[in-house]
């Protein structure tokens, strides 16, 4: 966005100065120059397991020296070429490629990561092919890749037409899309990375990359928003000339593409609930395998949900939260483009706690209060009913679905022991009595996808804002509309990002997951009251990813108790509280 703003200002200034011959070159220069840095950052984010056999013999330190030398040298090449008015595009692209390679080599973490436990491959293209193969093998990620292609295609179209017409608005919109195209592959790659198995360096696996990339995205968006606010202030103080000729058509085109993107993610999200009643989804296949992937993509747009997820927290015992949810929903639904207005309740995915037979567990549908274990999603006016059965502790799954439209096996196998990016984590409880579906783990946001979604959302809002301000400027002549709209939109963006920021920060800080807090307290008190237990010590519960909850605890028991039985009882209780990965140390103490 800052690139867009800056290029907007610069192109505007170019216009005003009437430096006609320079314009073409100016526009041409933006794109290739940003490409090296784009690729550099992609390289940094993407952990490529590439080993150059011959280069490796030199030793890592030497490689670093050489690559840093290359970096500095290569920076001077474009600098030198700047002195000549007509420089070659190809030289810059080459420079960009070499910079990318150099930065990758520069990175000891990645080099050591390469050495430890990943398959070595001599070919250069392997590390690019493997994730691509992985991406293509799953239907959902194929869709994301498709959207990325659409976006990139439209961006190229915009760049070309902007060069031909030298329009300010087109350039800035094209830069918008560039940013979008940058965020998407990063997210997809992070998804790929988090699937890789655990090794000696990453003992729990690489699931944390997701959270970290979500956090970085959130920080980035906050900063971009702040910067835009600042630039808007500057603009207010020093108003700039804005040409609105082709801006309207372009920004409307941009809005269309972005809304397509939102629909894509929204679709995914709908699939998760199996009820895309209003969309005509022609996806009849069932995925026995791809659940985790689906889920990771599905909950891209949980930003607003998060808000009421936290509200939900307190709704265990009161049904009055009904109002909460609806009001929250509507509020958050404003963020969505026009299309989403109909999906009023689409915010609520099963993120309600159903502790006891509360009717308010399903805040979705006022008419249809599902009972204990049913989460009823009513999307639009349909009752696409999902019945998730949460009974099966043994298999950690078994969610029955009655989907009329789809026969996805999505929600089965929700819980993969390790890499469940999963958003719907219905934690299984073996109900102590009868069929009470127990806690729902909510707050499962796939941080990575949410970060990406927020990027797309921010872009959409930016385009919408541009349209609005263009109209205002054109028909009312209020030049102040442009910065005012920017400020308003960036405030919206920042406020939508803050939940993601907070949630990912909490996970990174090893906090007990909010969803499990209450259940955990009860479990601990239950354990402490058990016969034979002296003390529970050193209890540490934390999230590895949104869905993996890990706990360690030391249990002190009296000398007479049967260790094995006590151990199994305690681990049962803790498993039911949601801790899937438990290490329990039992010690006998003499009283």
């Amino acid at each position, binding site marked *: 966005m*800052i*690139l867009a703003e*800056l*290029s907007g200002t*610069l192109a505007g*200034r*170019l216009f005003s100065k009437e430096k006609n011959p320079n314009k073409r070159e*100016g526009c041409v*220069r*933006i794109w290739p*120059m*940003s490409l090296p*840095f784009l690729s550099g*950052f992609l390289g940094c984010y993407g952990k490529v397991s590439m080993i150059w056999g011959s280069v490796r013999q030199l030793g890592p330190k030497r490689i670093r020296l050489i690559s*840093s030398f290359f*970096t*500095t040298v290569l*920076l001077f090449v474009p*600098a030198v070429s*700047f*002195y000549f008015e007509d420089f070659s595009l190809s030289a810059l692209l080459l420079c960009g490629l070499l910079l990318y390679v150099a930065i990758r080599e520069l*990175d000891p*973490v990645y080099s050591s990561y390469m050495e430890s436990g990943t398959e070595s491959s001599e070919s250069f293209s392997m590390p690019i092919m493997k994730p691509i193969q992985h991406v293509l093998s799953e239907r959902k990620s194929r869709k994301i890749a498709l959207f990325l292609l659409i976006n990139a295609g439209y961006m190229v179209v915009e760049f070309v037409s902007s060069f031909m017409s030298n329009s300010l608005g087109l350039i800035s919109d094209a830069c918008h899309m560039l940013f979008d195209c940058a965020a998407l592959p990063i997210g997809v790659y992070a998804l790929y990375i988090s699937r890789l198995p655990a090794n*000696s*360096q*990453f*003992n*729990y696996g690489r699931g*944390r990359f997701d959270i*970290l990339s979500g956090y*970085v995205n959130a*920080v*980035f968006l906050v*900063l971009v928003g*702040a*910067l835009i606010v*600042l630039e808007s*202030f*500057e603009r207010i*103080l020093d108003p700039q000339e804005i040409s609105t000729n082709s801006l309207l058509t372009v920004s409307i085109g941009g809005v269309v593409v972005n809304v397509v993107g939102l629909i894509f993610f929204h679709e995914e999200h709908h699939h998760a609930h199996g009820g895309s009643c209003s969309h005509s989804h022609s996806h009849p296949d069932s995925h026995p395998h791809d659940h985790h992937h689906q889920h990771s993509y599905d909950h891209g747009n949980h930003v607003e949900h998060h808000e009421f997820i936290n509200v939900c927290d307190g709704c265990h015992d009161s049904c009055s939260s009904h109002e909460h949810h609806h009001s929250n929903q509507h509020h958050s639904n404003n963020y969505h483009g026009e299309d989403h207005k109909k999906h009023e309740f689409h915010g609520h995915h099963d993120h309600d706690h159903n502790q006891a037979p509360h009717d308010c567990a399903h805040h979705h549908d006022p008419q249809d209060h599902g009972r204990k274990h049913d989460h009823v999603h009513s999307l639009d006016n349909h009752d696409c009913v999902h019945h998730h059965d949460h009974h099966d502790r043994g298999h950690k799954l078994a969610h029955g679905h009655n989907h009329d439209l789809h026969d996805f096996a999505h929600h089965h196998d929700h819980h993969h022991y390790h890499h469940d990016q999963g958003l719907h984590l219905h934690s299984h409880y073996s109900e102590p009595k009868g069929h009470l579906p127990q806690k729902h783990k909510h707050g499962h946001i796939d941080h990575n996808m949410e970060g990406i979604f927020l990027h797309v959302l921010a872009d959409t809002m930016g385009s919408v804002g541009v349209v609005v301000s263009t109209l205002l400027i054109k028909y009312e002549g209020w030049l102040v509309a442009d910065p005012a709209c920017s400020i308003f939109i960036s405030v919206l963006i920042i406020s939508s990002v803050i939940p993601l920021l907070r949630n990912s920060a909490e996970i*990174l*800080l*090893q*906090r*007990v997951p909010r969803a499990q807090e209450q259940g955990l307290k009860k479990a601990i008190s239950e354990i402490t009251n058990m016969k034979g237990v002296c003390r529970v010590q*050193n*209890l*540490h*519960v*934390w999230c590895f990813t949104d869905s993996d909850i890990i706990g*360690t*605890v030391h249990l002190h028991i009296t000398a007479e108790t049967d*260790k*094995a039985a006590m*151990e199994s009882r305690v681990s049962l209780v803790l498993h039911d509280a949601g801790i899937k990965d*438990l*290490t*329990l*140390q*039992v010690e006998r103490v003499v009283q």
Partner: protein
Amino acid sequence: MKSLLFMISLNLACSTVEFAIGLFTGRIGLVSDAFHLALGSGLLTFSLFAMAASQRKPDHVYTYGFQRLNVLSAFTNATVFLLFMSFSLTVEALHAFIEDESEHKHYLVVSAVTNLMVNLNGVWFFRNYARINLVYKKAEDMNYHSICLHVVADSIRCVGLIWTFWLLSLGVNNAEALCMGLVSCSVFMLVMPVFKASGGVLLQMAPPNIPSSALTKYWEQISCLKDVTQVSEARFWEVVPGHVVGSLLLEGKQGMDDGAIVEYVHGLYGDLGINDFTVQTDYI
């Protein structure tokens, strides 16, 4: 901590003064510079908050305490600098290059010089941490290191600005693009190690200072104990640099003396410095 507070207030004071002057004289460059300063001090405030908050005792939700805030703030500082400063400086360089005219007006030299003074002051406060690669012994080390690098990067940027003005006055045409490009590259390479180290801790990587050969050796030692059939799920990670947590799963035959074995295992890993250890013993 007091030094950080002093620095932040100094930054904010400079920024407000610049903002006021910019408004009165109508010079937008000063206003935008003031905003950038304010943004920087916002980031420093976050680090200050992390420093203060990390002293709190662990409670029932933050079971490992708040020390990790230091790591998080170091990571945020590093990300912001890596992602943001290098990138935006590059964009500014591009901007200046394309326009064939420097965006920074000449009156900005004064602000650059004052900024430089403030930052050098900050570097002096944190001079112990003014290195690129640092061994982190405690949690606060990371935070202080990142703050120091923040200030160093800012001063490099000011030096770059001053150099730009000087070169421009000498008549070198694309001085700004060159200098800003250099500054962004150097800032990038400066901050990379902190970024990776803090990122590694946050990603639950195995502690880098404990060689994996030692861990393998201990694994084998434990497997060889009497009645132990299998050792699995040995996982180690760092809460903060210096505080390593580990867990292990042991399976053994009935009749295994688990009290003694647990003590032995604790002793083994305690030698490595891993005091927070949990061993689960199961009978097959």
